[in-house]
């Protein structure tokens, strides 16, 4: 069995995001970048499945500028076998990403596509779903437990009502929740070995796809600052403030 796992390079989750003065986006110069955390979970789960003998090959893919290769190398260092870097110098919307992934799926013919439930930079949570729709494959999103069988995969999903268990036929698209596992550390020798693993390089422009963005970004702003709270003396004052100042009653 073969898994295609998608990883995205994003601003590290510990970094405080700074919005550009002109509202055109956020600062990324000299900012620490890392792999999108739920994508790390997807890689980890793929490697676990490989260790259990159920999966033969893991292909890690990333779409983005040259440095996206860092995320692929990281996946290779913890156990992926091959990398594919699709070079794209500007932002591509989830629809475009899904189209690129579809193209790669047709070429690589994996039994399962694994990806994070969403990326922490744009929080779209769309790529996996769009990809499944375009491939006409079943989809299992927000997986927090994965049980791979011969021709299907059983997934536990955390939903508002509790835990939902579903089983989908393969091939399928599976997106991962952070609770799925705890990603391992890459060891030094494996980081060195990863440098020698194959990495195919493609250019998004050469794939013959319409990658035009459909959404126009008007402005990026910081969320409004929370005002300092006040202490009220009694319930009457509280009610009066809620009614007259906050106007919520």
């Amino acid at each position, binding site marked *: 069995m073969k898994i295609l796992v998608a990883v995205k390079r994003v601003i*590290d989750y*510990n*970094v*405080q995001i700074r919005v550009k003065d002109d509202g055109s986006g956020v600062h990324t110069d000299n900012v620490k970048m890392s792999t999108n955390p739920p994508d790390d979970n997807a890689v980890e789960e793929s490697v676990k499945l490989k260790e259990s003998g159920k999966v033969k090959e893991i292909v890690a893919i990333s779409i983005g500028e040259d440095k996206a290769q860092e995320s692929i190398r990281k996946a290779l260092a913890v156990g992926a076998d091959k990398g594919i870097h699709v070079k794209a110098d500007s932002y591509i919307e989830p629809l475009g990403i899904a189209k690129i992934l579809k193209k790669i799926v047709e070429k690589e013919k994996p039994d399962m596509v694994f990806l994070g439930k969403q990326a922490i930079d744009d929080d779209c949570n769309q790529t996996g779903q769009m990809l499944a729709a375009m491939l006409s494959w079943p989809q299992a999103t927000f997986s927090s437990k994965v049980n791979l069988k011969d021709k299907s995969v059983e997934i536990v999903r955390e939903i508002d009502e509790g835990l939902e268990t579903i089983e989908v036929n393969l091939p399928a698209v599976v997106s991962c929740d952070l609770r799925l596992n705890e990603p391992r*550390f890459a060891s*030094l020798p494996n980081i060195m070995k990863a440098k020698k693993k194959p990495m195919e390089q493609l250019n998004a422009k050469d794939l013959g796809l319409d990658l035009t963005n459909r959404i126009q970004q008007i402005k990026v702003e910081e969320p409004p600052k929370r005002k300092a709270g006040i202490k009220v003396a009694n319930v009457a004052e509280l009610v009066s403030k809620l009614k007259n100042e906050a106007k919520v009653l």
Partner: protein
Amino acid sequence: MAREAMEYDVVIVGAGPAGLTTAIKLKQLDPNLNVCILEKGSEVGAHILSGNVFETKALDELLPNWKSEGAPVKTKVSKEKFLFLGKNSSLSWPTWLLPSVQKNHNNYIVSLANLCRWLAEQAEKLGVEIFPGFPASEVLYHEDGSIKGVATLDMGLDKEGNKKDTYQEGMELHAKVTVFSEGCRGHLGKQLIKKFNLDDGKDPQQYGIGLKEIWEVSEQQHQEGLVMHTAGWPLDSKTYGGSFIYHAENRQIYLGYVIGLDYQNPYLSPFDEFQRFKTHPSIRKMFEGGKRISFGARALIEGGIQSLPKMFMPGALLIGCDAGTLNMPKIKGSHTAMKSGIVAAESIIENIKNKADLSIYEKKFKESWAYKELFTARNVKPSFSWGLILGIIFTGIDQILFRGRMPFTLKHKHADHEALKPASQMPKIEYPKPDGKLTFDKTSSVYLTGTNHAENQPVHLRLKDPHLPINYTLKEYDEPAQRYCPVGVYEIQKEKFVINSQNCIHCKTCDIKEPSQNITWVAPEGGGGPKYGNM
């Protein structure tokens, strides 16, 4: 079972200016050498913090084409100012009356973190292997006692030291020569200085804490290339310190404050002195309406050659501020650190090829311009132990008239941790409340550093005696850790000493200033600590 091991010609601990320079120089001299660098930060530059007005002398020697190769060394110093601050007044000191070591017209305002990132690229192009996120945590020895290399930290341990699912054993890295370039108060360097008695016959090392913020200001407030320093308020005349204000590119100002860690009053809080400093009328107007975008802090070396330990031992070298090569009156250490790296690389080549003894490193360093510079600078810092005014008068005579060649050398009498006086003998200091616009609290500041440590790992700030903070240090000194730590790692809560090690920004001040030397800083799990951008 023996740990896995990798063999190198040279292993370097720490990807700062000194370590990266050593690596580059080694590969320039012999491209076939196997060289690797271990770095505890999540990427090169993540733990680098410095002023920084950069003197290019060592970079010119190392990579003469740095300009055309795109080094992030671009903003030339265009104007200089020096202010003495009183509580509400300021006196501008004419620059022609400044000693030449404090003149900066050929220097550049840089982000040392960015410069290190660029140096790392140059090193990787030459084939150096750099491993960010892997702290060296242990020195390894041959049977004859010489240094064999280092081991990386075990990863994936829980608070009690039990193995988690993600446990991964540390690795051994063996080398013909191991180079320690951890920066000021490196935790392995400290062990080596003790084990090999490298500081025998030297004065106790002197340290400072440097705090830095980056501000974005309006065009009217910005004057690219302006370098300004202040002395005086808010510090009293017995406390050594001052500010730097460097106008960098992109309407940014690098603003910082350095305080000698030989201060006496346990109520002093370096962080709050820095915040208070910004409220001075001459300073406030420079930042009002602007936005603080970064914060950080790091200890630095102030001892100079009186405290410079022996820099070699069997199988290993200490370079840069892991030894202590900063030039205090110049307020610069990057160029001397890099020079020590160049000399170290040349010495290692002679050691590996011609079996020359590693002691040639210290001999060569003492013949270099870097050491000559440190020699003429040696009397400035100790003279300030007589107070600000006498210090300035002496420094004027020493630096301007004698150019540092007076026929005697002043001594550093005490280690910094011995300098604190009991709380009962010192006045309490009331610091003004932060306004959230110009001045800030520690919580919002640590937030800007991007600091994080994986939860549930062993605490990396170790107490030799866990009861000492409450039983002794609190009573005697009102537990100064609450104040000298710039990010509030240490708190007293209901008669309990709490260590919020997750907030630690690896500045090492606690390891230096704790009056009983009860706190030991060790490396936490790889990738932890701050994630500085262009500090």
